[in-house]
């Protein structure tokens, strides 16, 4: 039983490794500058010169997809990172302390789940977060971090990431809380308590590490979800700014050309599919492995 599961999960892992390599080595792999506009070359079908053809402004699709790998992976992983950190903290507190704190936190989670996130998105756009974030660069310590981050990432991407992360931490919180509720009653915890361990030590040293398994599974699946969400946001025009190439925005740009430039629609969608599938298979493999323990 374990052998085949590992094979699928292994396939997923291999694909993801390949994607990570592509993302890191993008400047060396991509045949063209993804932002190079060349109107005479607009909408060329796949050929030797352009393996995946060109878009309406003559930009090479393959190069844009390669650079898009960076954006998608970064958004996926970092947004889930935010969700996991925030969610674990809240869930741990709720699950460990129980009682009124649990009630309060879970009601807070319920409230957030009911609020229309689209409005939050619109409000965020209006406050011009990219500008605000760039102003942070002047702050002494934080500024250095910000500068480094923004050298690598467009502030708009940071905004999109944060939004997706803040939209999804609630599920992690629930999960962690449930795990803690179960784990709390297990023998090793009672033993640790008897030995006089403090609450903080209990949470961080004993409980959370054991709760890692389902969180890890959820995180792996969550990355796939985040990538899909980014594509939906771009489809609705609320994602990254032009001319940044994210898979979702390439898909969106290709919408008007469905009849004649199928490569503009097919390739970014296929990339999203393969990547999310790989994450899901990996996640399932992890789940199987942890379940057996």
């Amino acid at each position, binding site marked *: 039983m374990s052998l085949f*599961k590992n094979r699928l999960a292994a396939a997923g892992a291999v694909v993801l490794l390949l994607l990570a390599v592509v993302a890191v080595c993008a400047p060396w792999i991509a045949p063209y500058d993804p932002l190079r506009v060349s109107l005479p070359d607009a909408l060329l079908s796949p050929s030797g010169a352009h393996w995946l053809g060109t878009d309406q402004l003559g930009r090479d699709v393959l190069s844009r997809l390669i650079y898009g790998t960076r954006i998608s992976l970064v958004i996926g992983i970092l947004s889930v990172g935010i969700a996991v950190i925030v969610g674990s903290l809240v869930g741990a507190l709720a699950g460990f302390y129980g*009682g009124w704190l649990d009630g309060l936190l879970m009601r807070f989670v319920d409230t957030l789940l009911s609020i229309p996130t689209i409005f939050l998105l619109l409000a965020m756009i209006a406050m011009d977060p990219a500008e605000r974030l760039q102003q942070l660069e002047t702050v002494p310590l934080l500024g250095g971090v910000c500068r480094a981050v923004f050298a690598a990432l467009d502030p708009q991407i940071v905004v999109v990431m944060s939004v997706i992360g803040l939209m999804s931490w609630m599920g992690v919180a629930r999960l962690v809380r449930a795990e803690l509720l179960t784990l709390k009653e297990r023998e090793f915890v009672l033993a640790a308590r008897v030995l006089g361990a403090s609450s903080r030590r209990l949470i961080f040293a004993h409980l959370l590490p054991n709760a890692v398994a389902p969180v890890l599974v959820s995180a792996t699946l969550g990355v796939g979800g985040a990538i899909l969400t980014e594509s*939906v946001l771009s489809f609705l025009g609320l994602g990254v700014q032009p001319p940044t190439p994210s898979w979702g925005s390439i898909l969106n740009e290709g919408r008007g050309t469905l009849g004649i430039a199928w490569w503009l629609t097919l390739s970014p969608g296929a990339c999203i599919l393969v990547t999310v599938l790989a994450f899901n298979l990996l996640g399932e493999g992890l789940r199987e492995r942890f379940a057996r323990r």
Partner: protein
Amino acid sequence: MTAYLVRRLLALIPVLFWITVISFGVIKLAPGKPTDAAMAFNPKVSLEARQRMEQLYGLDQPVAMQYAKWLGRVVRLDFGRSFLDDRPVGRKIVERLPVTLTINLCSLLLVLFIAVPLGVRAAVRPGGAFDRWTTVFVFTGYATPSFWLALLCLAFFGVQLRWLPISGLHALDYESFPLIRQWLDTAWHLILPVTIAAFGGLAGVSRYMRSSMTEVLTQDYIRTARAKGLPERRVLFHHGLRNALLPIITILGLSLPDLIGGSVIAETIFSIPGMGRLFYEAVMARDYPVVMALVTVGAVLTMLGNLLADVAYAFADPRIRVGGQS
């Protein structure tokens, strides 16, 4: 348990109140006014006319006052009138609800019809070729961006093959059809939206079915049944499946609030007037009455769903003492 339930239900009311307050605040936070569509950037409309229009809609009053007015109406179950077309919000929701419910129910049935047998079969011989292929299949369904798939299917089945209609719910001369033909026509129009919605939902149910079934099959009573010499089919279905279905039913219960939610992208692409588009268009047009009504209804359903989940969880694992400290 009963006391706990009652306590939880009563606790819902202040939470609902806070949800509506925060939602209203968030909505007002987002820039833009419902009068924008008609009046912003229309040189024939003067600034004074715009301001007057805002007054007529009560938008110049302080936010707290606007909220208080809304609350006052809502407790009498009056959700007000939409700013888009001045129609009662309740009627707009009731118009769109049947379509969304139909699509969601049909897609749910389709999912169950496919995912349950898939999960059972995969559980019977875990690790086999069948298990592997179904895993890839259902996860592909989950991983596919639905709007991408929708456009590709439309281009292929609708344009290339001309087998299916491109958009809409009914043929143009629907009203003149006999009842049977009306049903068939609607079904024909719903094939693609329902199928695409189902494709994405297969993964969840089938994986759950599989793990539930494998767990059940390791139980002692299954081994007993087999030892007694019962035919394999009876073992599987009568003993195994019946018990394995229980958690599935819980899951179904939890997804009740999702039944009224529609996918705005699918509805846009297929031109279906459903709840998803209602919400999205209301948001874009800053149609507060509609948005608040949908948020409130959605919140109530979500909270009831969560309550069900917690109760079910407590039943499942008696070690958890809900609502108390250890």
